[in-house]
């Protein structure tokens, strides 16, 4: 059992409240996943610049001179924002590979990167994780979150969701995949590698690799129904929106709500209780083996 929440804003005036609304939804899903919690939030993008989110077990030491070191190595200034165990570096688009290698050499864990996506995830209760990162204060156009009850890999930061396997793409999952080892090997043969032992990361890598091969988000999500075996309700975030797909058996719960202001996803209706205008929202259960997505 895990909990998933997602919120996609149709209007800009709610953007400053995105983190606040997502935090309430995430905390409500604590019963479904008290082991770890995470959120991917799509905020403001700056042309020509990429955000890289990194994590460290020892942030005081790791982040102390990080901006100076990276700036010196790249030969141009970078911006660093430290948020508890995480830090977001903003680097020029054409230096991302170089910067990522540098960060990994320094022992930092790369959570994800992208023009607008930032990822924050840690072990602990959703309430505590949200407070550490100040999720309530974060704004943006859309975001997805996850509360984990671990099954397929250990309770660690790297085993927490969301998983990002390509710029601005991330995945959260309720369920368990049974062919993830086989799929991990198949992807490795194509040069697509995962960082953890986790099944969901393989699902994320599968979707990213399909998109990299030219599939649309809809086609890539559709492919999960055919190529991934097991139970899943997936919510996939991209720079422009999010998508939802459930396996054909659909025993993992899912509910959606839509108003003129937003589209919301949750494992249970409880997570919607505080959303503005929920009483008048269209609320429905996404169909099994059917791809839904919203883009701006």
């Amino acid at each position, binding site marked *: 059992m895990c909990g998933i929440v997602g919120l996609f804003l149709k209007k800009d005036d709610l953007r400053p409240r995105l983190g606040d609304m997502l935090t309430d939804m995430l905390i409500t899903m604590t019963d479904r996943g008290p082991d770890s919690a995470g959120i991917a939030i799509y905020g403001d993008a700056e042309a020509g610049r990429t955000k890289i989110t990194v994590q460290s077990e020892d942030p005081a030491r790791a982040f102390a001179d990080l901006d100076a070191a990276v700036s010196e190595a790249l030969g141009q200034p970078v911006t660093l924002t430290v948020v508890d165990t995480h830090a977001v570096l903003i680097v020029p688009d054409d230096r991302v590979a170089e910067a990522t290698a540098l960060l990994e050499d320094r022992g930092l864990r790369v959570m994800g990167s992208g023009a607008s996506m930032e990822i924050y995830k840690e072990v602990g209760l959703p309430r505590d994780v949200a407070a550490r990162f100040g999720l309530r204060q974060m704004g943006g156009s859309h975001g997805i979150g996850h509360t984990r009850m671990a099954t397929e890999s250990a309770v660690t930061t790297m085993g927490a969701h969301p998983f990002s396997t390509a710029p601005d793409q991330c995945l959260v999952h309720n369920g368990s995949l049974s062919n993830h080892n086989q799929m991990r090997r198949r992807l490795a043969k194509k040069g697509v590698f995962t960082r953890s032992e986790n099944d969901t990361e393989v699902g994320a890598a599968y979707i990213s690799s399909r998109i990299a091969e030219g599939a649309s988000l809809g086609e890539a999500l559709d492919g999960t129904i055919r190529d991934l075996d097991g139970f899943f309700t997936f919510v996939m975030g991209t720079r422009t929106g999010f998508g939802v797909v459930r396996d054909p058996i*659909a025993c993992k*719960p899912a*509910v959606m709500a839509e108003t003129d202001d937003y589209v919301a996803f949750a494992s249970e*209706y409880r997570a919607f209780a505080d959303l503005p205008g929920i*009483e008048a929202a269209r609320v429905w*259960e996404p169909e099994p083996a059917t791809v839904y997505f919203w883009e701006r």
Partner: protein
Amino acid sequence: MTTTLDMTALDLRQVNTRLQAAARAQANEDYVITNPRGSHAMACGLDGPLGVTIKGSTGYYCAGMNKEATITVEGSAGPGVAENMMSGTVTIHGDASQYAGATGHGGLLNIKGNASSRCGISMKGIDIVVHGNIGHMSAFMAQKGNLVVLGDAGDALGDSIYEARLFVRGSVKSLGADCIEKEMRPEHLETLAALLDKAGADARPEEFRRYGSARKLYNFNIDHADEY
């Protein structure tokens, strides 16, 4: 007399304790629950005559094990609504999530919207009327009772069905193992008319088709021995 219980002031256990005590006392009173906020296990285990109206949507296992009570959800219901109901009436104004009315022994589950997968799974005498559509694997291993669907049914309807009767007005995406379309006889039309009337459904019995067991799985067939 109607008593209102507000769930912003009372927690779930306090609300259910009040309802269960009133049901046991055979009080036959009416209760209104406000601000349910999708809570789990609301109004479950009511063992006597009682009217309960829930003003909003509910989470898992609402109205489970109901006996004699009349429960109305003025919203949608999460998974397992009216699971193992013995008698009474449960009405859902919105949609119901998966396995609505599972293992129910009696009473009426009246869903005004759609029901999702596994509706009426292993039903044992309950009557279920769904005004919209139902999802896949509905009435799996259904033993007794009636499932009436005004809309369409999903894949594998009535798989491994025993003696429950299934009435569908719309299309059936596919029938499950050992489930077949059956002749609609006068007694079926009569049963269906009574159920439609009781559920306040706007449909005529003649518009429905009946499905049930081919009874081929009841006994072991020696010709299939090689398949095991």
